[in-house]
């Protein structure tokens, strides 16, 4: 008798917990991002409804898109006809969940607005003459719909986070031999609110696996030198 009562009580408890649960938990409002980047974003992920500007470095955009698309969310890229999709594939972006609108033309704002309604992460390269009203409207729409807007290039003031690759140093290529293998990139994050403090971090972008990876300071120098010294057979040698 007593055991049954406990089971029943537990059932009640679960019901109460469900009622007491806040409508939207903070983690539901957060999209995952890959490891070294999460430390640079306020809250440790892409907060839904925010605007994250990638000022410089398309590799950063790919690193942002990788985790959401591979965990079942949708991504879209508007107005980047020169996006390296092979690199996106290597960076871990699930191409089946990435819609591309290479050339939206004059309708870029309408297209982006339509995508914000349903897609989780929308990367957009605004036209050279970006109208501030358009930008504000899109940012407001993203906030309302809970999408993450990722403008690439210049964007108006007021974005929550701004990311850029400040400097990069490629490893693996020497005078006449080797090939590009990895890059130590210095990523700078600025922004407002929780991100106002600003961060500067070095990481592999892309790393040995093609994805963004954290840089271990003690190994970093040694790895770079070793790999630079090992030549890679060129095509003639391979035959």
């Amino acid at each position, binding site marked *: 008798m007593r055991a049954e009562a406990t089971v029943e009580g537990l059932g009640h408890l679960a019901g109460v917990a469900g009622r007491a649960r806040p409508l939207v938990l903070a983690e539901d409002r957060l999209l995952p991002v890959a490891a070294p980047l999460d430390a640079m974003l306020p809250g440790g992920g892409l907060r839904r409804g925010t605007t994250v500007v990638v000022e410089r470095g398309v*590799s950063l955009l790919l690193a942002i898109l990788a985790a959401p698309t591979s965990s079942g969310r949708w991504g879209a890229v508007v107005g980047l*006809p020169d996006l390296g999709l092979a690199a996106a594939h290597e960076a871990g972006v699930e*191409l089946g969940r990435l819609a591309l609108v290479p050339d939206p033309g004059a309708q870029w704002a309408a297209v982006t607005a339509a*995508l914000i309604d*349903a897609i989780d992460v929308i990367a957009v390269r605004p036209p050279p003459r970006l109208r501030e009203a358009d930008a504000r409207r899109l940012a407001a729409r993203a906030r309302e719909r809970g999408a993450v807007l990722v403008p690439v290039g210049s964007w108006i003031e007021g974005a929550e986070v701004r990311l850029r690759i400040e400097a990069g140093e490629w490893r693996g290529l020497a005078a006449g031999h080797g090939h590009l293998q990895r890059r130590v990139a210095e990523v700078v994050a600025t922004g407002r609110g929780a991100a106002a403090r600003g961060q500067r971090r070095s990481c592999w972008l892309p790393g040995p696996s093609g994805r963004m990876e954290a840089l271990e300071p003690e190994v970093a120098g040694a790895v770079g030198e070793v790999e630079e010294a090992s030549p890679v057979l060129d095509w003639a040698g391979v035959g």
Partner: protein
Amino acid sequence: MTRTLAVWCPDWPVVAARRPSSAPVAIVFANRVVACSAAARADGVVPGLRRREAQSRCPDVEILSRDPASEARSFEPVVAAVAAFTPRVEVHDPGICAFATRGPSRYFGGDGPLAAQVVATVDAALPPGAPGCQVGVADGPFAARLAARGAGSGSGSGSGSGDGSPRRGRWQVVPPGRSRTWLAPLPVSCLDQPDLADLWLRLGIRTLGDLAALPAPDVLSRFGPEGAAAFRLAGGIDAAPLAATDPPPDLVVQAELDPPAQRVDTAAFVAKGLADDLLERLHARGLACTRVLIEVETEHGESLSRLWRHEGALTAPAMAERARSQLEGWLATGATTAGITLVRLVPDEVGPDDGRQLGFWGGSAAADALAGRALARVQGLLGPAGVVTAVPDGGRGPGERIRVVPWGEPREPVCAGAQRTGRAMRGTQVEEPPWPGQVPAPSPALVHDPPLPAAVFDRAGRPVRVSARGELSADPASLSIGGLAGRAGGANGADDEVAAWAGPWTAEERWWDPRAHRRRARLQVVTGAGTALLLVLEGGCWMVEATYD
């Protein structure tokens, strides 16, 4: 046995080629004459001759190559004319069709009057200058076809002449139950088994009667299944029933709008009703539509149409949504200048509805449907090719390793290796076929299309070239890039010094095809400013193919 009427249009390949029977024409396939016109036949051209032989017998013969598609297409009016008698018509070959006569011959008062009617109707449908058709009625399609072919010669019982026709017998009726005796005197060559017929002739079996007189088990053991089938035909037993299919269902739905719709939602509402109607019809037949053509006509006579395709089957809401997006897109881009008077949905690609299995895990189907609708809306604005998705593919350059397909079309890898394993879609590791000369990973994040013109110089300031053996003329020391300024890659004055480089990776592609042949050499370069570039040399010009941004 099914009482069958066969219609035979003589020399159909010649008729389909739009040549009159009075002109000497021979249709050739694989260097052999397969059909010829009456004029050519008069000069001694017969099917089976070599082309050269036909030309020697009839020097002014016109030789045409066979076009089965055109033959089938031009036979369609004849089939339509025959279908006026009964809708279930079997097309045996372009030029020969048949139907079961049970109902029609009762209606027209017997096989003879029916045959006369069919001759008159089909002759009216034939193009001018074509030889008239011939009709045969017998038990079973085989005997009926032979009766039709034999009708022109005027032999056999029950043959009659068409009214007022200059030709003698245009139709021939073999009385019911007499097919076997009627077939008996015909030569074995009419069985269309050239190898067996040759053997039979050498064995002294010259007519179908001789063949039918043999004991059945011996025929099977000596001549195999093909011989047994021929034996049954010769005995007047036509086992194969008439493969008459129902006429293709008319699945096109359309609605005329009166008064014309001035607003998108009015027209979209009509389109939704049409989509529901269409899907109901498709469902009743167990069919699913994977491609639909949306057509719209306006008051000003503009006719707009666009094909929509979906990997899975289109459901009624999806179709209505696409119609709405399309209408919105047309109105937004100013393609329509007046009210919409007609909306039509044409199912373009229809297949059996084998259902769709959704993933078992993950309840994101609602979000996926939402995303699909938003993308369909964008496709309505920009056209179906405006939204694309990328499929990993084989190739050497960074731009070639990805193929883009319009959103909604099946994402199948075309490269042979991926097809062999067939797993590229599921994200598992696929063994890629080798691409010698491929630039190693990581791939560049920016692929310039078109590539930016560049120039590469050695230490002495001479242009760097790549020899036929794939060797650089000198180490690259500096480069200049045109058109990079203003790009996201960012170029400044320091971009003219080469700090590190590797290569060249040469690729000689499609050397077997003179038009698609490409010879390229690629070079990885890190400039003094730290920018990594992929340079490509083609036709003596260096270009920046991609930036490792």
